[in-house]
C-alpha cells in the first residue's frame, strides 16, 4: 500500500504537553511518567505537581526511557542515570562535530 506524502512535523520548541498526552506519545502509563520526573529523568517545563506541563523535547526523552527500561530491564533510577549519560554523549558529539567542521581537511 502506498500512501501520499505526509508532512514530517518539526517538534515545535514552544509546544507544550500535558502529562496524559506525553504518556500516550511515549507509550508509558501516567504513573511511569511521574516516576521518571521523581527520578529527575524528566523535568516538567512548568506547573505544580499534578498539573505538569512538558516541553516537546520530553517526548524523545520519555520514549528513550521506555526503550531503555524495557530492553535492559532497568529500574527508574538506572534509566535516569543512563539518560544523563546519553545526553552528555550527545552534547560531546555535537561539540566534536562543531570542532571538526572548523578543521581544514
Amino acid at each position, binding site marked *: 500500500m502506498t*500512501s501520499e506524502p505526509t508532512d514530517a*512535523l518539526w517538534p515545535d520548541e514552544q509546544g507544550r504537553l500535558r502529562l496524559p498526552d506525553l504518556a500516550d506519545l511515549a507509550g508509558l502509563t501516567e504513573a511511569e511518567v511521574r516516576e521518571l520526573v521523581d527520578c529527575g529523568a524528566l523535568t516538567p517545563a512548568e506547573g505544580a505537581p499534578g498539573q505538569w506541563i512538558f516541553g516537546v523535547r520530553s517526548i524523545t526523552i520519555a520514549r528513550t526511557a521506555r526503550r531503555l527500561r524495557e*530492553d535492559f530491564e532497568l529500574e527508574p533510577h538506572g534509566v535516569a542515570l543512563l539518560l544523563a549519560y546519553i545526553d552528555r554523549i550527545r552534547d560531546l558529539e*555535537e561539540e566534536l562535530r562543531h570542532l571538526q567542521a572548523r578543521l581544514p581537511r
Partner: protein
Amino acid sequence: MKFKDYYAILGVERGAKPGEIKNAYRKLARKYHPDVSKEANAEARFKEMAEAYATLKDPEKRAAYDQLGRHGPGEDFRPPPEWSTQFGDASAAFDGMDFADLFAGLAGHPRQGGRHGAGGARRGQDYEVAVPITVEASFNGTEVSLDLTTTEFDEHGVPRRVPRTVKARIPKGATEGQVLRLPGQGGKGVHGGRDGDVYLHISLRPHRRYRVSGHDLFLDLPVTPWEAALGASVEIPTPAGAVNLKVPAGTRGGQQLRLGGRGLPMPQGGAGDLHAIVQIVLPPELTDRERGLLQELATASTFNPRRHLE
C-alpha cells in the same frame, strides 16, 4: 515462514539456564542497543536478539519454541497443524505471519487467539527510522520513501506482517540529530486505539565540499599567496549556487571568511552562515618565471614571521 534459531542468536546452548539467557541477552544488548551503540546495523541486530529474548525468557513461550524442534536458521518452516488452533481455524493463517508472531500471541491466554483477540483499545505500533539525507536535501527539503513492515490483525486477532511504504516530506532545514514525527503513519490501532506514529531520526551524509555544524556550513577555500596578500574576488559554491566572495588583502591561512545567511535554512526562519576557511596553496610546480619572481621577493622583503621565536 523462516525458522529462527533463538539460542544461536543469543549465543547460548539449548539447555541454558534462565540466568544464562538473561546474561547473554544483556551483554549483547549493551553492544547493539540503538540508543547506546555505534555498531553498524545495530538496530537490526538488536531487534533480532530482543525477539529471541522475548521468547526464551518466558518459560511458556520457551517450551513452545522448544517443541518446534531443531531446524536450520532461515530454513523454510511450517508450524505443526495443531498450532493453527490458536490463530483461528485455518492453517492458512500462517501465511504472511512472521516467526516471532507464533510466540507473541502466547502471553496470558494462549488458546484465545492471542493477546490481541479479546482486549480493549490498543494503539498502533510506533516506528523509529533513521533517515540519512544530503546537505542539498536539507537545504531544499526533500521527500523520502520508508519501507516499513507493520503488523495488522484480522477479526480473529491473527497477526499479519504487511509491507507498507510511507512517503514523508522532510521540511527544509532538517539537520543532524533532529527528530521529526509523522503522526498516525505507524501501525494501525486495534479496537479503536489510535494509529501509531513514525519518528524520523535525521542525519546528514558527509558532503564532498561542506562540513556541517548545526545550520552553519564550512568550506575549505584554497587561495594563492598573492591572492591572500593582495586581495581578490573569488567564486565559491553555496547550496543556492555560486557567489562571489571578497578575499581581503592580507588574509591569513586558516582565517574564516563568513557569508551570512548562506548556510542551511532554519525552521523558525532565517539561515545559518557559510564559513570559507582560507588555505594558502602554492602551485605544485613553479614555472621559471614564478620562481624568478619569488626569488626577487625573497631578496626584497625584510619580513620575518619568526621574530617572536627568537
